[in-house]
């Protein structure tokens, strides 16, 4: 009962947040008399969506697929690289600076390369999503693994635990809360990556719609696509939060109260 009421009030507050944001947007759009082409009104965006709902949802599903796939791959790669960095000083010294540099490269600049290697299909978009979002995963894995309480590290050492077992049984579970922070950062980035991939090649996905709409100065349509992207990301993000809760019940139980 408590929980039910909590959930209702939570949903209420969240809705209020959205309402406030949309209201502020509507106000800004009308109060400053910003041209529709630069900042369309919420109503205009909804109208744009209703003009092509089927098409937009279809494109959203395409982007969703790329995002999820790219995210999953980034988790796999991020875990591997993060663990290597946490485990081997040589790996850290050799690859950390490269990763940092690579992460600072605007990925759009790499798009032609990806197109040449992988063509115009979904693959380069998935790879783009992966490239854009794996760095936070790497850093949070490495950071989380480095933050194992010293007494647990000593426990592992006292049992002469092989390195990989120390990782799997002690350091990694302890790092999970921090890893999830990294995943939460990575999740919206994955959709940004997929969209950037769609900007650069192909003729599908919300990114393509945004470019097309932008090119025809149909800003309302671009915003409709952006809105869908936002909704999609919220859903993915909270799915991740749910996974976290299911996987790490002990964190919630021991975590700090507000």
């Amino acid at each position, binding site marked *: 009962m408590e929980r039910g009421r909590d959930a209702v009030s939570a949903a209420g507050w969240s809705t209020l947040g959205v309402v406030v944001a949309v209201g502020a947007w509507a106000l800004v759009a009308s109060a400053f008399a910003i041209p529709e082409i630069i900042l369309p009104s919420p109503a205009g965006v909804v109208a744009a969506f209703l003009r092509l709902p089927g098409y937009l949802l279809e494109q959203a599903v395409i982007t969703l697929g790329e995002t999820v796939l790219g995210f999953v791959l980034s988790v796999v790669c991020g875990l591997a690289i993060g663990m290597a960095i946490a485990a081997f000083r040589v790996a850290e010294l050799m690859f950390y600076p490269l990763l940092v540099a690579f992460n600072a490269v605007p990925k759009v600049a790499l798009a032609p390369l990806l197109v040449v290697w992988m063509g115009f299909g979904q693959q380069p978009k998935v790879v783009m999503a992966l490239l854009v979002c794996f760095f936070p995963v790497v850093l949070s894995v490495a950071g989380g693994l480095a933050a194992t309480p010293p007494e647990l590290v000593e426990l592992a050492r*006292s049992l002469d635990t092989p390195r990989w077992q120390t990782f799997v049984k002690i350091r990694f579970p302890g790092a999970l809360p921090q890893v999830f922070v990294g995943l939460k950062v990575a999740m919206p980035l994955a959709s940004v990556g997929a969209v950037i991939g769609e900007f650069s090649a192909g003729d599908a996905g919300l990114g393509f719609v945004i470019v097309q709409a932008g090119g025809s100065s149909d800003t309302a349509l671009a915003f409709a696509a952006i809105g869908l992207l936002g909704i999609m990301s919220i859903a993915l993000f909270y799915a991740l939060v749910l996974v976290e809760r299911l996987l790490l019940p002990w964190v919630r139980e021991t975590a700090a109260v507000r």
Partner: protein
Amino acid sequence: MILLREVSQVFGGRRGAVEALRELDLDVADGEFTAVVGRSGCGKSTLLRLIAGLLTATSGEVRVGGEPVVRPRRDVAIMFQRPALLPWRSVLDNVLLPVEIFGWPRQEHRAHAHRLLEMVGLEAFHRRLPHELSGGMQQRVALCRALIQRPRVLLMDEPFSALDALTREELSIELQQIHMEHAATVVLVTHSIEEAVLLADRVVVLTPRPGRILTVVDVDVPRPRTLGQHAHAADLARCSAELHEVLGARRAAAEPPPAPQR
């Protein structure tokens, strides 16, 4: 079994070095039960860490079973001063951690783990997480985790400090029992002279920082021992008195309280 020669340990630090142990010599025979007592901060935990291979002595030699200690060994178990439980594992799984790590058959040792939890009175809590336990309960879980390894050398750092007298006594008896059955070599750090005398063949007394061996008191009383009205009570009491004497506790207490400092 355990041999320390001129072992010194100095901790470096940004605020200057701390000399924890100085030129310590110690021999513990196979199957011997040694207790270590000494003032807080005198280096008892450091001593155990050195024997466990968790620290490398600044100078001197540490051997276990004749071999120099260069890293932790699986036949040496250590129970830390803090429980060091994995917060995401149930009590049972915490106890079974060494079993998993050693790659022993889990099924078999499960039964053993349950027996140990039964022994320390925590069987009813075996599915709970550590944060649901009281301080003393956590300490008992850590004890079970050390015992499940059935090590040749068992190092224990104040294992009963968070336990009430009754539980402490029950577990002392169990520990004695286990020691007698498995002939393990035990080094036990304790602040309880009673406990040291009840359990140990020899009680090593360390000086305050830096820790050196002040004296060694032999307790030549046959096992099983209990405190109380038994045959050797007098012997135990004598050892106890001697230790109190050495540690200066009674003497200090008998003096008038020091002048208030403010």
